[in-house]
């Protein structure tokens, strides 16, 4: 099922993600910033893999390092 992600999803993603962080660090403020910017800029759409053609290109988005330039 595909759907457009909205403002409420931002907080859900940060809170759900915090449990799945499994004790690791991470930056809730950075997550909120990305989510709020996204839902105010356009209409980010969540799609399940069964809706994606086999030949479509999928890449991985990641942040590398830590926001404050620390080792955390």
């Amino acid at each position, binding site marked *: 099922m595909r759907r457009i992600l909205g403002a409420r999803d931002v907080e859900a993603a940060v809170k759900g993600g915090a449990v799945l962080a499994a*004790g690791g660090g991470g930056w809730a403020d950075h997550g909120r910033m990305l989510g709020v910017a*996204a839902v105010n800029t356009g209409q980010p759409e969540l799609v*399940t893999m069964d809706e994606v053609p086999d030949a479509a*290109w999928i890449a991985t988005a990641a942040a*590398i390092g830590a926001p404050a330039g620390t080792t955390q």
Partner: protein
Amino acid sequence: MLGIDYVKAVELTQRELGAAIYGLMIGQNGKSSTLNGWLPAAVLGTKVIDAVGDLRAHPTGDMGSLGLANSPEPMIQSAVGGNRANNAYIELVVRGATAKISPILRRAADMSGGFIASCRNPVPASYVKQHAALGGISIALELGEAIIRAEPKGGAAVIDAICKQMHGEIIGQGKVARKAVQYTSEAFDIGTVRIGDAERALVLHVMNEYLAVEDAGKKRLASYPDVIATLNRDGMPTSVGEIGEGMELLVLRISKDVIPLSSSVRDPSVYQVCEKALGINLTEYALGRTAG
């Protein structure tokens, strides 16, 4: 780093690939990583793909890499960002075997002031369907939604909601008796957190994240890829970094048997570095028997 750097990274990888990127997945869930694909989706129209390299966070890139970490196949990786105030903003695109080019991005993060956005390893969707933990974003969103709904009812309700939503259980609770976690030269936080005392004590083994929980008799109560988390009385997850001795915490376990697993989690080669660092067996539990 700015949010727009995630967008630029996708553009660079797309240009090098010579084809449109349909969607973005993530390597692991986390407080911000769950949202890594959202801004490119809003700006470029790439999709937020409901699949993850690992439902939970993990210490090494290999653990969420869909088996690409050991692949000789050349991959494309881009990175954008850095500290603009120090004129340390950089952009780069590299191509090669993942094991060779991933360290370049890590080095780039250091050189640019510590924080960059990357877009890496474009693969056909058929590969993702076969290797990723499918539905990993929806699971995080539904968990978060359950937490938000329970919050007005207080901490106990939030903890119940987390357990119910994820089919998880609280395997122990108590005061943090001892935290012995060291930052090592390999850039990992490694050690243990002991919760409770005497025969009811739990020992949590930490390598950046929680990888295992044992009871006082060294019986394994939880083991990666189980989701292991510590919650305070308000139901707030606490990171190892936030934990201090004397804090009252509950230990949550969500068994690997009730979550989607990726192919990396079933790859024995990813466990060697963790087992060496922690001095405990992880492979046996990850590939075979269930803890608890």
